[in-house]
């Protein structure tokens, strides 16, 4: 490899360019410039000297070449300065890649996120969100819901009872158990409001289940109730369809599978078409194409009779959906216990 020839314009320019490129500081750059364009001892100065010493016959040609070299060197120097200014750090420069000081912002619990999303969806459909006590009496939790004293759900093995009753609103109001469903609040609401009614009741409920991968002795539920004249099972289906499509996927379908609950008649399990495989079968829907998310039905006339409504004039529907169930499906949580372990590594994965 030979160095570019300093006796040709191209050679000089090529070397100038390389030297500038190698310059690490403004000072370095200036020194390079001086070596090529300086008054004394520079490359250009050498060319000038040679021009002065040249025979008259060559002077004209050599003069043009020297001028051309000078022009080229100056142009390159000017463009070098321009680029350098654009890239160099100005005085007081900071390392902008260092981490910022994020203002503190905590995370809402995933069950809170799901709950408020559901509240928003049903609120848009005209439902009013109301809350009720977690400790209830047997009448509100069972009797008024067409579950008479001998009903199996009232067994000590399914329901958690208190050792001593606690006080409720009135002097005679003694609460004796942890509610097994938020339906008890439906009763309280109907006792104090006349139809038409459209409410959702989100809240904590309790069952005598051991804590494991898929069960929790306490969990969140969101219950809906609509009462009015001419309310039908078709209306229930449409309401839950809107919920399903807004919660999971715009193409989700709803299927009602007949079932039995004492407080609704007819009763059904709510299945949603699998929004992952769209019915072709996947792990989430256990290859059935359908995912069960809760129960529903038309309010049993005995429930209306318990709260003093005219069961002939009014009809209504109700449903109950587990908040954990929705969260598990939506966020693909494999273990229900994660919701109550409160590990920040889990909680901080959810959006603010």
């Amino acid at each position: 490899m030979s160095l570019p020839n300093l006796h040709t314009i191209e050679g000089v320019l090529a070397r100038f360019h390389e030297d500038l490129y190698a310059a690490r500081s403004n000072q370095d750059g200036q020194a390079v410039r001086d070596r090529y364009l300086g008054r004394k001892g520079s490359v250009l100065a050498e060319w000038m000297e040679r021009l002065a010493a040249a025979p008259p016959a060559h002077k004209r040609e050599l003069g043009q070449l020297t001028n051309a070299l000078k022009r080229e060197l100056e142009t390159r120097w000017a463009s070098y300065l321009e680029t350098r200014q654009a890239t160099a750090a100005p005085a007081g420069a900071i390392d902008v890649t260092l981490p910022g000081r994020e203002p503190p912002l905590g995370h809402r619990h995933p069950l809170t996120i799901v709950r408020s999303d559901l509240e928003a969806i049903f609120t848009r459909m005209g439902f009013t969100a109301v809350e009720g006590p977690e400790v209830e009496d047997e009448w509100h939790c069972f009797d008024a819901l067409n579950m008479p004293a001998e009903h199996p759900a009232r067994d000590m093995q399914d329901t958690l009872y208190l050792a001593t009753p606690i006080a409720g609103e009135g002097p005679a109001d003694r609460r004796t158990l942890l509610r097994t469903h938020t339906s008890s609040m439906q009763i309280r609401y109907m006792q104090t409001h006349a139809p038409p009614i459209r409410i959702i009741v989100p809240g904590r409920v309790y069952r005598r289940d051991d804590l494991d991968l898929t069960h929790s002795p306490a969990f969140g539920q969101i219950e809906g109730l609509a009462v009015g004249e001419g309310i039908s099972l078709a209306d229930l289906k449409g309401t839950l369809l809107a919920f399903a499509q807004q919660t999971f996927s715009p193409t989700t379908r709803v299927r009602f599978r007949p079932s039995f609950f004492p407080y609704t008649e007819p009763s059904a399990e709510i299945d949603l078409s699998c929004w992952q495989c769209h019915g072709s079968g996947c792990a989430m829907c256990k290859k059935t194409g359908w995912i069960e998310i809760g129960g529903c039905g038309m309010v049993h006339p005995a429930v209306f009779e318990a709260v003093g409504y005219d069961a002939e004039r009014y009809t209504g529907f109700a449903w109950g959906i587990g908040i954990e169930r929705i969260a598990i499906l939506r966020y693909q949580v494999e273990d229900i216990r994660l919701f109550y372990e409160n590990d920040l590594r889990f909680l901080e994965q959810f959006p603010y």
Partner: protein
Amino acid sequence: MRLVVSWLRDFVDVKASPEEIADTLGLRGFEVASVEPLPGGDAVIDFEVTANRPDCLSVMGLAREVATAFQIPYAPTPVTNGASVPTGTSDRITVAIDDEELGPRYVGAVADITGAASPSWMASRLQAAGIRPISAIVDITNYVLIERGHPMHAFDLARLAGAEIRVRRAKKGERITTLDGVERKLDENMLVIADRDRAQAVAGVMGGAHSEVSASTRAIVFESAYFKPASVRTTSKRLGLKTEASARFERGADVNGALPAMQRAIALMESIGAGNVSNPIVDRYPAPRRPATLHLRRARLASLLGAAVPEADVVRILQGLGLGVTAAGDGWNVVAPTSRVDLLREVDLIEEVGRHYGFERIESAFPVLTQPAPPPDPRIARDGLARRVLTSAGLSEVLTFGFIEATAAALVDPGAANTVAVANPLSAKFDTLRPLLIPGLMDAVAHNRRHGRRDVGVFEIGARFAPGGETRAVAVAQTGAVSDHWKNGPREVDFFDTKGIVERIADAFGIRVRFEPVTLPFLVAGQAAAVRVDGSALGFIGRLSPSIADERGAPRQDAIFVAELDLDALSASVGVPFASVRPLPRHPFVVRDLSIVVDDTLPAEIIRGTIRTAAERIVVAGAPLVDVRIFDRYQGKGVPDGKVSVSLRFTFQAPNRTLTDAEVQQSFDQVLAVLVREHGAVQR
């Protein structure tokens, strides 16, 4: 209910495959647990039958459903026929019902038996249905149980004293050894089948060992009875004894199915050569129950389902299920057989029609809104505001259970005066309702600390329980650093971080809270305060006692600060909500700083109170004091022992004029004079 498909075909000629039968009934209210193939192309479908359909705990009941679902006739083949032994009086047994309420019907028949074994077809059907074959007579009772859903029993006639059957309540202290060899103590609420001397069976639950049919038995008494569901249920529960019989009786067997079941058992016995009946069947049925007639209205059916089901379908479905249907006025009169214990009113018929018409065929609609929705429960917005304030403060939300272990509750409520126990807890871990949120929050902190997390800031909003009722609270716990950045390094959380959060919550709710030193068993003495509003308690704040942190599994040396506020009390104290803005001041303000030395035991709150009181008096005369804040507190060099230097920043501003230096100085001097007089303050 394990349904053997070949058995089903004795009643309905269904051509569909077992899988198709399972899928179809799955959408008609009978959830399928499994479909298992059997030898010879047979199969068994395991259905989960809902509690309202005891009639479907039988081949016959499910056959009705299959016939209706597949729109084919319900047509039992001759092999399912019963005998036609007359009823009357027997000279070999007497039957008496002493308690008609608990035992409304008793059908008994004496048979002489041969000792023949069950044929293999019977044994294998029972096995497929999940019943262990035992002997021809027992197998016959079980076969009838599975086929017709009617529980039966057989006694060894020779072991019945006085050749007598008496349906009566157990006597006080009476005992019986049941077929499982366990001696059981009975009480007067339990119904028994007795002979002249003693109880020989617990009615509807299990027979007694004494009269068990054995290899030496020559004559038996078949029992086909009906017992009150609630009575069987409580007896079964009290004895802790659940059987195939009790499961059916407690949900409701068919009172009118008792005699056909007996005839069926006799026919089976005779057909397999296991015995024969030469005496009349004794049928004690003092108050025969007739099937109920219900009225179904066309319009009600359409409006409740929101679908127009063709009339032909309505009739087809109800008749298919074995109901008598006749057109009547605005709909139909429907006779529901007594086997259908779930059909009590019109809506039950609507369910039957809807179920078999197919819920999937009902088009979605939306209920008409006739009035605007009322506002939601104010607690939702209240809790939302608290949550917003706390997440904005960098705390993350946790959720813990409403029940905790008694030892955890005792840490915050040592005398348990405020603690409510669970009567039937799942385990000692969940045996007490939480009196405060702090124990659960404490466990959340400990969990994170144990898993390598240094800085923890969490809160919970939830219910807590006391004998006086249920309240909603918000609680906060912080430990580790509140901020950690490469430029400034970490800053450890202290009391005032948590206090600032409490103040922010109070501010968000527009209330003014006061902090007063307090002694609580779970907070470090001298680092705890009661939070009060208008003299009433709202909650507390302080540093958690290290021994409690240690006990709940957090490092003992952790400084954990906690606070808990009663949200119900908080929202009750909210005064005038924010309604209008104050005009912005038009005149400049003047700031003056003052450093004073006072006793270090003098609370800052008192100094501020003194200044505020003094300021109120000077408003007219001098420059109005609009703000005072403490910006430094210093002890050490230059300040005598037992004293503290407090630096205060005063802001003076008048709404209507620019203040002069003289005015400001006058006010400043007045305030200083009061501080000197009241607290012996010395200006630095």
